[in-house]
């Protein structure tokens, strides 16, 4: 039996529930179907960018800024960097070198 964790309390929430009644699932989380690329590898994400060196920054590219556009352009970390595939395709125009041009970053 499916557990209901969230309960509508006010009229607006109840209206949303009525609106969604009978609606089928329209979105899939990454990883379903299995094999959808997540993180920095196409097979599975075991922390590709971990490195064994005990220096800053541990577990990341050195410096992190050097990896920024590589991640943005391919949408690896869309919560942390601009999404270059959908919402910010021209992000690099004002900022072609992050370490040099980061002051040009302008996001609402």
């Amino acid at each position: 039996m499916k557990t209901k964790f969230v309960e509508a309390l006010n009229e607006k929430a109840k209206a949303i529930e009525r609106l969604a009644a009978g609606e089928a699932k329209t979105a899939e989380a990454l990883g379903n179907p299995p094999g959808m690329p997540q993180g920095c590898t196409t097979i599975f994400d075991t922390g590709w960018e971990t490195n064994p060196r005990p220096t800053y920054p541990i577990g990341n590219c050195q410096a992190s800024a050097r990896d920024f556009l590589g991640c943005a352009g391919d949408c690896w970390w869309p919560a942390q960097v601009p999404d270059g595939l959908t919402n910010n395709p021209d992000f690099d125009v004002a900022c072609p070198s992050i370490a040099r041009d980061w002051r040009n970053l302008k996001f609402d």
Partner: protein
Amino acid sequence: MGRKRLLPLVLAAAVCAGQPARAEAHDLFYYLGYEVIQVIDGDNDSIVADIPIKGAAREASLTADRKFMYVATNRHFVNKVDLALNRVVDTIDVSNDGWDRVMFGFVVDPEGKTAYGALMSRTTDHGEVVIGNPVVAQFDLATGKILRSVVVPWGIAHLVSVKGGTTIYAFGQDLYKIDTTGSDLRLAETVPMFDKHMNILPFWDYAWDNGGVASMPYYTPEGMGLLLLDQQTGDLQDVRLKGQPAMAYSVILSPDHKRAYAVMDDVTVIDLANRTFIASVPIKEGTCYGINVSADGRKIYAGGAGSTLTIFDAQTLKPLKVLQMASDGMDVRRISF
């Protein structure tokens, strides 16, 4: 100096002039950046040309006659670069026919009129999102129109053309071999990688730089290995390395194919015969995605990620020069003329 003394010199010069020039390769390196490709002359390691390009450069493929390089940008544009003019002469978009497409994996067909791309696609139908099946598609390089395609599993990120373009190897969760010889593209064989616990980011392969051998690093819970794919035969060599792994985005072969050079935060030298790590030096400028080597094997070029290109002596691994590039970058490719 008298005329009699000059005569032997004149004759020698005339003889030399009649001989073919020594076949010394002239290296040009192409730094694939953001909104620009920069050309570096391997003779003096200086930037000799800027090629404006739209977007973030990702993958590159070379025509058989080495006159044009196609560079994929923003994961959906394909730019035709005239290597004599150092200029983009045409740009197509694989997002067309009402579909948004992103391409992770791109290779030009040997005939040079079409290319293959590993595509994920999306569109809307009456306001609802529609996600297309992932495909490997052949498309027209003049129009971007898809000519034919085959549905493939999710997660493909790189394509390599083998056996004269009769087969496309698609690297993802597993390796998928796609037969291009029939009227339809056909998924002919799946070579397991996931079940072997192989973890791979196959964005860099250096097939043309290596003289027809694609080289890619991979990892398992036990260590590091290299995949070496012979484009002519389709043979895939699995080189499991001994010892603690070196973290690497990409790896390139020395011209004699006895060594490999891997790069991420360090440049690491690998002995391919003994499958061991020989030496490693940190890159002072920081992480690099791309690596290359001069045609004579004397210099190593590490660049991309950040906006630097560091040139190392291949024997001593001492840095010889650091070029400040116009942008961050994805890769550095070599064409020897």
